[in-house]
């Protein structure tokens, strides 16, 4: 099937709306993607005609809702190449998925003096939970350093990932620079020392064909809302033998097997790790998002983004005076561009672009260690997805010209 950009754009109602009186140019999909009509309609249909709680009712509606909810679990397991559906745990977001691992697996398996390895490019969601765990357990955090082009410096990998390391946790793709990490070398080293590997797939799964078994991830965390699905749905995948050993981290309904006044026994997977009524409509809507992505094809999406990325990088380079972050090796980069006007704060750029109808993200992108590494307060970030066009990039350049006009006086250089 060919990549039909016009048809794709037509599937996303918000893309034909206006912002501040100008046609919307949405370049912030790395924060949260837009949603196609099929996802919106699926959620509406659930509330209009199928709404009921799941796993409890013996009546038709509850059975139907349960079936649809569990169908998304099956679709998710297929989408990521998992061995079966019960290794897919639904949470609220990537952050909760990572916290689940920290609180359940981490508190059981990380002890005083053990080491956890992260990178200097992590999102706060894959940093703060490990800081909290390390403080509680007196464990040690270590960081794989960065090269100047924001790729990982793996030259001392053997010294960083030692026998004391119990977990290596890193992003598949950076939300700031779009860097796609070379996971295979890291995973190979982790295996040598018996460490587990957690991949934060929040930015990866939406852009890159991914297979958790082939790539040998122990844990894989991601969110529905960055991949055309609704907010409030996160996913944790883990190998079955690991999940089997993980104790519950939240107690309540659905996660139990039998309850007495003073104790309980717990349900089998995946229910044991999903306490309480979940985001049913969200999960069902996520099922529609997965179908949409599959109908377009993840490799097609990747190819389209690469084309946009090359075009945008060329134009931004030609624009002159901008500081661009990230590698120029596009095989190691997704559709994310972080840049700065030296002398102009990213928030000022964001406000001026907003007035032109252009939505980009500005600030530290919840990755403050990277900002410290670069010695900057933040960046302007334009991020692409399957519905973006070269015209969007052209609009961005027009907006940046306006920034240059307004701030011309204070620009350094």
């Amino acid at each position: 099937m060919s990549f039909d950009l016009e048809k794709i754009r037509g599937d996303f109602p918000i893309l034909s709306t206006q912002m501040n009186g100008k046609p919307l140019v949405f370049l912030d999909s790395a924060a949260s993607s837009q949603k196609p009509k099929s996802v919106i309609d699926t959620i509406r249909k659930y509330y209009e005609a199928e709404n009921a709680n799941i796993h409890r009712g013996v009546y038709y509606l509850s059975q139907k809702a349960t079936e649809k909810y569990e169908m998304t679990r099956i679709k998710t397991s297929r989408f990521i190449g998992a061995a079966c559906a019960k290794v897919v745990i639904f949470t609220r977001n990537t952050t909760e998925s990572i916290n689940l691992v920290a609180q359940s697996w981490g508190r059981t398996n990380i002890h005083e003096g053990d080491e956890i390895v992260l990178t200097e490019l992590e999102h706060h969601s894959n940093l703060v939970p490990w800081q909290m765990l390390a403080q509680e357990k007196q464990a040690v955090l270590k960081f794989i350093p960065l090269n100047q082009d924001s790729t990982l410096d793996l030259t001392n990998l053997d010294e960083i990932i030692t026998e004391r390391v119990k977990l290596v946790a890193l992003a598949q793709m950076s939300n700031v620079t779009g860097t796609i990490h070379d996971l295979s070398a890291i995973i190979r080293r982790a295996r040598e020392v018996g460490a587990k590997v957690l991949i934060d797939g929040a930015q990866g799964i939406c852009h890159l064909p991914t297979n958790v078994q082939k790539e040998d991830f122990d844990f894989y965390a991601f969110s529905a809302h960055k991949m055309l699905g609704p907010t409030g749905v996160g996913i944790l995948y883990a190998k079955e033998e690991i999940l089997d050993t993980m104790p519950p981290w939240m107690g309540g309904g659905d996660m139990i097997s039998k309850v007495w006044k003073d104790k309980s026994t717990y349900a089998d997977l995946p229910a044991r790790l999903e306490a309480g009524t979940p985001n049913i409509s969200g999960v069902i809507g996520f099922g529609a998002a997965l179908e949409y992505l599959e109908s377009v094809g993840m490799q097609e999406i990747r190819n389209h983004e690469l084309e946009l990325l090359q075009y945008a990088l060329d134009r931004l380079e030609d624009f002159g005076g901008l500081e661009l972050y990230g590698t120029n090796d596009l095989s190691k980069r997704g559709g994310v561009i972080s840049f700065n006007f030296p002398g102009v704060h990213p928030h000022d750029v964001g406000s001026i672009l907003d007035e032109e109808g252009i939505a980009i993200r500005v600030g530290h992108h919840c990755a403050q260690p990277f900002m410290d590494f670069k010695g900057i307060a933040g960046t302007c970030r334009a991020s692409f997805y399957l519905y973006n066009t070269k015209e969007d990039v052209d609009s961005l350049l027009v907006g940046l010209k306006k920034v240059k006009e307004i701030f011309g006086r204070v620009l350094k250089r």
Partner: protein
Amino acid sequence: MSLSDSLYQEVLLDHYQNPRHHGKMEHFHLHQEGVNPLCGDEVELFLKLNGDIISEISFVGKGCSISQASASMLTDCLYGKTIAEAKSLLQEFKGMLLEDKVPNFSEEYEDLESMEAVKKIPARIKCATLAWNTLEKAIGK
């Protein structure tokens, strides 16, 4: 005039580029740090008092043009004023941005009027008020 044109006027950019009373102070009576954690804007205020009068004031900080220009304007306005005058100006400034009140600044404070355009960009109001919230904490202590 477009929104960003009316916001990013000469006066704001001038304060951003040439901040008044900029720098740390050695011996001070009041000191307060302020930060907007979500955007990372920072302002640090130093005040020296002579009785009730702000005899010296300075700031350091980092962040967007609005947060830093606002801090510069604040120090410019309050130099040599009393704490009571500072409190009154603080109320008027925050009233303009947070309660949609029409400001009635005297001529010596007219630079502050350039900040009124921030009202139309709600996301940036916290940038404009950072230095003033910091002042509030400093003199409230």
